Every structure is written in C-alpha cells, then in structure tokens.
C-alpha cells in the first residue's frame, strides 16, 4: 500500500516535467458489432443475458439493445435453459421448482443465439470455488502524505488441484467495486498459470484486492473502509478463456497514465469466446460467455 506513494515520489523527483492532458481526437468510424454480455452463475436467482451493439467511442449513451433474439443455454447434463426477452430488452431465465439453479459444478455449457438471421454459439465450463473463511479489517498508520486508514482482507484457500481460476468481486455498502483497476483475478492462489501457487492461501495482493483506493475531490486519500461500512465478497469461478479475456480487459482499460504508460501495452481488441456459426464471417461479435459457481461472505466493520 505504501508502495504506491513511494513510487509516486520517486518518479515525481525525476519526472516532474511530464504531463497528461485530456484531449479531443477524431476517431475513424467503424460499423457496429453485436455485443453479448452472458455472465451467468449458479445462484438461485434470475439470470440475465444482454444483447446490444457497439456505439462510437465518444458517444456517452447506453448501447441500443437488440430485440428478437432466441437464446438458449444447454448443459452437459441434458438441461436446457431458455432466456426470454423482457420488456426492458434484457433476456431472462428464472429459476423454478424443476430448475432451482443454473447448472452444476463440473458441467459444460453451450450458448446459442439466433438473431438477425445469424446464429452464434459459445461454450464454457463451470469450475469450483472455495468457501471464504473470514474477512478482516486492519488498521494501518499513516505518514505525512496520508492519514491513518483501515483496509480489509478476505481469507480463503485455493482448492487443491491446478487450474482453478477465480474472479473476486466486492460490494462495499451495496455498491459494486467495478472500476477497471478493481478487476481482481486469481489463477489458483496467485496471479497466473504456473501450477506452483496451488492449494495455498490466496497471496496477499489478492487478499487485499477488495479495497477501493480513492481520493476525494481535493486529492486527499480516503481510507478504504471506515467503521460502519459493510463489505460483501464473492468468488466466482471462471474458465481459462474468461481469465484471459478479463486480463485483456484489465490491460486495455486500466491505464496507468503518466509515466506508467512507458510500461503499458498499446491498444488492442479484447478476445471473445463467441463466434458466428458461419465460419466465413469473422469479427462480427464481441463479449463473453461464462457460467460461474459462486461463494460469498459479508461483514460489517464494527
């Protein structure tokens, strides 16, 4: 945590002459592409799939929805889950007595979308998740740059066996922490494949990834958590392809700015696991399909 400030000081001393400017640029015009947001899970509640199209980069509006699609998800246990269009444009599947939740751990899933005369499909796998053992809040003394603060940590062990991949999502006081910098992924207990960080407690940076780091409008650092705050952490299992996708999303959207750009990758399109059944047509769909198993734990900071 302190690192960020020391890094900033170190760079500031040498590089106090650079700058970032927000500017206007003209962008080339591109044709709209179908966007599929199909992140499903096994919680006993409604599941939604969103179909929209891309819009020009500087259009600050909600994407237009795509009506009239036929969407089904089938799993390897022989179940079919139908998603029906709602009045608000989303496609919904609801649990029922026969299908209390969507899928089981260990099953494969197949998504089919039939829209505007094109058929698309994607496949994924539901992995397993560990239980979260506990959540803790710790006090940290400040220094001349920042005041004292509290940070939270979740404690859980990766399941034994290489290849369990997770997306850790946090909700603080009912608000999801979903800034690009807050995307928190784990491959086994660490950051990436290597097979060696397996079956152990999640490493410290991952445990502490549930903290928001923000400044108020005067640039004063805010304590991630204060007395009375609630935190709710969920671990979602994701496929290898989803892990690569989210890593790419993070690299593309979580820009360091300033001198960090010296180490940043240039822009490139994020991958997708959805494809047009007609293999001759490429690059006409973006988005992702994943079915997760979820475990969660919440706590109020007393």
């Amino acid at each position: 945590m302190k690192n960020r400030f020391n890094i900033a000081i170190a760079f500031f001393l040498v590089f106090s002459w650079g700058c970032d400017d927000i500017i206007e640029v003209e962008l080339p015009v591109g044709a709209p592409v179908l966007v599929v947001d199909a992140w499903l899970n096994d919680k006993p509640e409604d599941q939604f799939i969103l179909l929209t199209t891309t819009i020009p980069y500087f259009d600050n509006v909600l994407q237009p929805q795509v009506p009239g699609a036929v969407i089904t998800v089938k799993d390897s246990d022989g179940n079919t889950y139908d998603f029906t269009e709602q009045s608000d444009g989303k496609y919904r599947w609801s649990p029922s007595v026969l299908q209390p939740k969507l899928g089981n751990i260990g099953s494969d899933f197949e998504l089919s979308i039939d829209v505007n005369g094109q058929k698309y499909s994607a496949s994924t796998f539901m992995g397993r998740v560990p239980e979260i053992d506990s959540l803790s809040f710790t006090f940290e003394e400040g220094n001349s740059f920042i005041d004292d603060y509290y940070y939270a940590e979740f404690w859980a062990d990766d399941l034994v066996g290489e290849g369990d991949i997770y997306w850790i999502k946090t909700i603080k006081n009912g608000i999801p922490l979903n800034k690009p910098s807050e995307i928190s992924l784990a491959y086994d207990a660490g950051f990436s494949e290597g097979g060696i960080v397996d079956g152990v407690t999640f490493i410290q940076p991952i445990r502490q990834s549930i903290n928001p780091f923000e400044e108020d409008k005067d640039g004063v650092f805010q304590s991630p958590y204060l007395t009375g705050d609630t935190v709710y952490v969920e671990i979602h299992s994701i496929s290898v392809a989803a892990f690569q996708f989210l890593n790419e999303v993070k690299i593309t959207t979580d820009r360091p700015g300033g001198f960090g750009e010296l180490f940043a990758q240039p822009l490139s399109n994020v991958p997708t696991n959805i494809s047009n059944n007609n293999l001759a047509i490429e690059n006409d769909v973006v988005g992702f399909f994943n079915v997760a198993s979820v475990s969660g734990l919440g706590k109020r900071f007393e």
Partner: protein
Amino acid sequence: MQTFNFSFLNYENSMKKIVGLLLFVMVYHTSLAQDKFTISGYIRDAQNGESLIGATVLIKELGTGVVSNVYGFYSITLPSDTYEVEYSYIGYSSQIKQLSLVENIKLDIELSSSLQQLNEVIISGEAEDENVSSMEMSTNKLDIETIKKIPAFMGEVDVLKSIQLLPGVSTVGEGAAGFNVRGGGVGQNLVLLDEAPVYNPSHLFGFFSVFNPDAVKDTKLYKGAIPAQFGGRISSLLDVRMKEGNNKELSTSGGIGTVFSRLAIEAPIIKNKSSFIVAARRSYIDVLAKPFVEELKNTGLSFYDLTLKTNYNLNDNNQLYLSGYFGRDVFKFDANQGFNWGSKTATLRWNHLFSDKLFSNFTLVYSKYDYQLAFGEDENDFFKWDSNVTNYIFKPSFTYYLNKSHEISFGGAMIYYQFEPANAAVGSGGDVINLSLGKKYNLESAVYINNNQKISNTFSVEYGLRFSSFQQLGAGTSYQYENPVIGESKVVTGFETFDKNEIIASYSNFEPRLSFKYQPNSKNSIKGSYNRMSQYIHLISNTTASNPLDVWTASSNNIAPQLGDQFTLGYFRNFSNNDFETSVEVYARNTQNQIDYIDGAEILINEQLEADLLSGIGRAYGVELFVKKNSGKLNGWISYTLGKTELKVEGINNDDWYPTKFDQTHNLKIVGFYDLNKRVSISTNFSFVTGTPTTFPTSRFMMQGVLVPHNSYNSRNNIRLPNYHRLDLSVRIDGKKVKKGKPRKVEDYFSVGVYNLYANRNAFSIYFSQSEGRFQPNQPIPSQATKVSIIGTVIPSISYNFKF
C-alpha cells in the same frame, strides 16, 4: 538420450586450417616480393598518446593511401622509391615525411592537435574529403569534441542523443530506450563498447546513455555496408571505442551537472608504454532530496556507471588492453522493494603484429545484462524476479595489408550465451514458491573473409563473405506447438528434454557483403552496397517504446533467425574546398522472420513465451539527405530522412502490411553552432519528426460495468500521433586561458542550456479510458482520450566541466 554432438565444432577446425594456410601463403609471399617494402607503424596523439583511429596516410606521388585501423595501426606496401608521405587527421597538424623506401620502415607518428584556430571546427575526425574518398558509406563518425558541443538533455553530453541528430537515426520519443536506424527495431542494433556487446545502452529509459563522454574516444555508426567482420544484428552497428588513457602525464577531468557528477582520471603507469583511465558518474537527485523528505529515507533513485581501461605496450609487436564497464539504474521504493537493471562488461585484447603487413587482434569478452524486481513488505509475502543474459566471447581477427591495392581481413567469433529469463520466487503467507524458468544456452559462431580492393584511382570495391552459425543447446526443454487460431496463443502439443550441450536446434547463414565506390575526382563520388545480415537473438517488446523489462530471447526450434538484405546507393559531393559536405543516400531493406506478438501476449515469466510470438516479414526504404557546413563562425548540419518501415505478419492487422511503431515518414534535424567569440559559443538543434503510429479505437461497449474500447477494423497502428517537434539551445562559456598573466592549468567551461525551448508537449502516447469516478449500473460512462507527454515543459540546466 542423444550423445554429445561435435558437429558445431567441425567448421571451426576447418577455419583453423584455412587460417594456417593463409598465414603460410602470406609469409611466403612476403619473402618473395623483394622489390616492395612496407611502411607501417602507429599514429598517436602527441599530447596524451591516444591512438588515432582513421588517420590518413597519403602517398602524395601516387595520390592514394591508407587509414589507420581502430588501434591506430597503418601499413602500406609500395615499390622501392622515394615518397612524400603526409600523415593527417582533422583537428591535428599534418606531418610530411620524406621516405626513401629501400627496406621496411617502422615509423610511429605523433600528431599534435591544432585547436587554437578559430575557424577549425571538429565535426568529423577524418581527412577533409573523407566523405568522398573513404570507401565507407552509410557510416557516420561523431568526434567526441562535437558531441560535447551539442546541447544536451539536462546539461549532460550524450553519445546516443548526438547520433539521433544524424540522418536515418531516430527514437520513438523521450522515455524510449535505445535508438532506431533506418526503420529497424531497437534490438536490431549491435552496440559495442570496446568490442563488448551492450544490451541496453540507456540509463533511465533513454534519457542518458551508458557511455561516459570522458572515457569515449571514438563513436562510429554503421547504418549499412557493415563490414564482414561484424555480424549478429540486422539493422546497424554502433562501435564505441574507449580512450586508452593519457600515457604521458596525469590528467583529471570531470564535471558537475544538474543530474550527474563525473570524474575521470587518466595517467601513465609507465610513461609512453602503459596507462589507465578510470571514469565514474553518479546521479544524485535522491542524495540531495533525502534529508528533506522523511519518506525518502529508504528510497533510492540513482544511476551510476564506472568505465575503466588499462593498456600495456609490451614491445613494438605486442600490445595488451583491458577494459571494463559497470553500470546500474536503481529505483528503490523502500528497503525491500524496487527494481534495478544494468550491465557489466570486461574486454581483454591482445594486438600482435606477425609482420609489417599482418596485424592481428585477439579479444576475449565477458558481458552480462540483468534486471531485478522485488515487491513485498516482509519475508512472508514477497515477489522477487531476476532476469539476465551473459555472454562469453572469443574473437580473433587479422588484417593483411597485401599491397597498395588489397587489404584482406579475416577472422572469426564465438559467442556463448547463457540466458536466465526468470529466476523468481513468490512468498505467500509464509510459503515460498519457486517460479523460475529454465536457463537457456546458445552458441553463435562465425568466420569471415573480406578484401578491400582498389581497382584504379577512381574505382574501389570491397567484397567479403561471413558465414555464421547458431546452436540452441541443452540442458533444456523444447516445445512443439500447434496453431489452431492464428493470432491467438499457440497450444503445446509436445515437448522434449535435452542434456547438457546436446543440440536442440541449429541454424547457419551465408552473409555476403559488397560495396563499391566510384570517385572521378576529389569532389564527388558514388557509392553503393549490398549486405545480408543475420540475427540470432531477439528483443521482444510489447509496449509502446522499448523499456528495461523487454525480454531477450534466442532462436530455437520455434523461432528462426532474422535475416536482412539491405541495398544502398549514394552520391557524395563536396563544395568550396570541403567547406560543404553533401550527400544523398537511398536505402532499401527487406527482412525475414521478424518477430511480433499476438494481442495480449504475456512476455514476462512465461515458459511458453514462444506460443505468443508471431513471425512475419518487413520492409524499410527511404532516402537520406545530408548537408554539412564545416568552417566559418556558423556551422552545423541539416539532415532529412524520408522513410517508411512496415511489417506483414499473419494474424495481425488482417494479414496486411502495417507500420511499425518507429515508422517516421519525415525526420528532419537541424544542428547549428555559432562561435560568438573566442570563449563563447552557442549551439542549437531543432527536430521535427512525423508522429508515431498508434492504434485508435472506433467503438465502445460495456462489459460487466467496465467501458471497453474496440477497433471494428481489427487493425494495428491505424493512426499517427501528432507530429513531434522540439528546439534546444545551449551556450558554452570557456574559462579564461590566462589568469594574472600566467596560463591557467585548468581548462574549464560552463554550459547553460535549455531543452524543449518552447515547451512543446510532444505526445508519447494517447490512451483511451473511462472517466474517473464511480457510476451507477444503468448510467452511461463517459469516455475520454488522454495524451501523455514525458516532457511537457522547458527544462533548464547548467553544468561546470573541468580538465587539468
């Protein structure tokens, strides 16, 4: 299990036989040529004994001559007669000797510098018409005195910053390490410091180079027509030679600047026979700031280097040299965390004269480049990573000065590489996990032969052949991949393990080198060249500009060596008695097996790095215009390059040609020096470069609360950043030469400079992101484009430099 394979040694045995045969033939031939004799010797500076590289020895009667080699040695064989021989070197007073050649003559010459003249400006340490008369083309030699006059960044004189003012040379911008030559990548330049390869020639992300100007004698950049004795990179060769050290008297020089402090000491060990030079630099921003900022107590931000050399002249036929470099860049966040990188090199060389006509040099080099990262606040939770590449090199080289028309060179090189891509560990809650990747071993070797032949007084050719070979050796593992979707990470389909020194993969290439010069008179010449280069180790970089964390990787069963074919043609013309030098040069280079990476490649600590790499072809062509004014109070040069460099890789940009990140259509540099009076001179330079290619999105979409940019054409480098331009200015005030009637022992000067005079905010990159702040799930998130400038203001500097 495979047995140890000696095949890579076979041609080396052949080489030894060839060398032996050649030596025999030469000695025999020499003994037969009774009516020809040789004048040979060393040309040195009379003040400090430094050998002069490229000094001219002109036989006036014949209108022809030779130049001294990199050790200051010259040799010319002529029919028995009387000759008037002129020894000259720009900036030095010429000497003329009347020689009666009835036997072999050993004549060492010491030339005195003639810096007193006001009009004489040292821009190139060569004969006045060198650009026309020299066989070399596509080369630029920058004298250290000129480099010292160019306004430098933060007041620090710099070799790499100076060569960027020459035609065909560029960088991606401030913050980019290394340099680009004729549209080649940063990793395609062979940078040698006294023959030791330097993997990262930059300190602090390219702001300064690792070459201490106090220790540098000569820098020569070969942009094309690279001689057969060099190989291993396909774009260029930057040959930096260190001073040997004053062998007549103790000399101390140094300086105090805004960033570095420097001190160099050179002195004789045995007068006229042996000397040394030690030059050190250290930055001190952190030292100055620490007492004032409590938080900085355990931080460190420094760069330093130490350059040393010693030499010993055993006798007329044998000289020994030992040089070394050690330098580091350190960023420490606190006692346990930070990152640092640097190089160390050591070179041992032995010059041996077999005879007046056969000069030889044997070089042994050790070179290591490494970087280290450490994060984590205690022993229970940490991450440590160390990566390095080590070379052990042996290079024998010979030059046989057959007669006035033929200069034959031959020799070889053997480089043993040891790569350690990742020596890493992570600690989590007390458990320590080893993330290290296996070490990799490689052997690169070459033999070459070359002849520089004067066919007539107006026409010369140089032709040579280099044969290079590369083996990937065990112990190690090789992987086989399948590529189901081009443009995505390949899938491992198998692997094989190898024992120590077993050959995993092997490559070899012939590299012909050819150049010609047609010079009808002393004022103009036409030169052309063709060369083929091969490159066996590759720099992988997936960021906007090259940085210290880029990965060097070797050819293997999955990565073929890079190949480059370059053609050049140029016209060189001098005007007004060499007061103006002009040239026009066109070049075209086709390259194969160029390495690029898939979108989203993982290049750090990746055992399957090769699965994320793609291979393609490249082409670069352009025309370079150069005009230089050599004399008068106002002098300098203008260089303009119009060029294009592109790649075509399956899986990128829809399999179409796309510009590389260092493709710069226009590259204009104007450099001027003006001597106001005897003590004050002003220098300025102006750069204008077409903006760097970059990729812009066309569209956007939301994914799980995050705004994602999208390029619906799936293109790469479809747009250019705004053009780059910058003006620098500096004033140099020389100290008084006389104080109270007595000459001062100290030579000193102040340099006051301004970098980026009109505070232009040149774009390093433009990135796209969602606006700051937290948004409700059903709110559209605003998007923005941000321009990053590494230097956005005026940077003044001042430095004081001394010598006594």
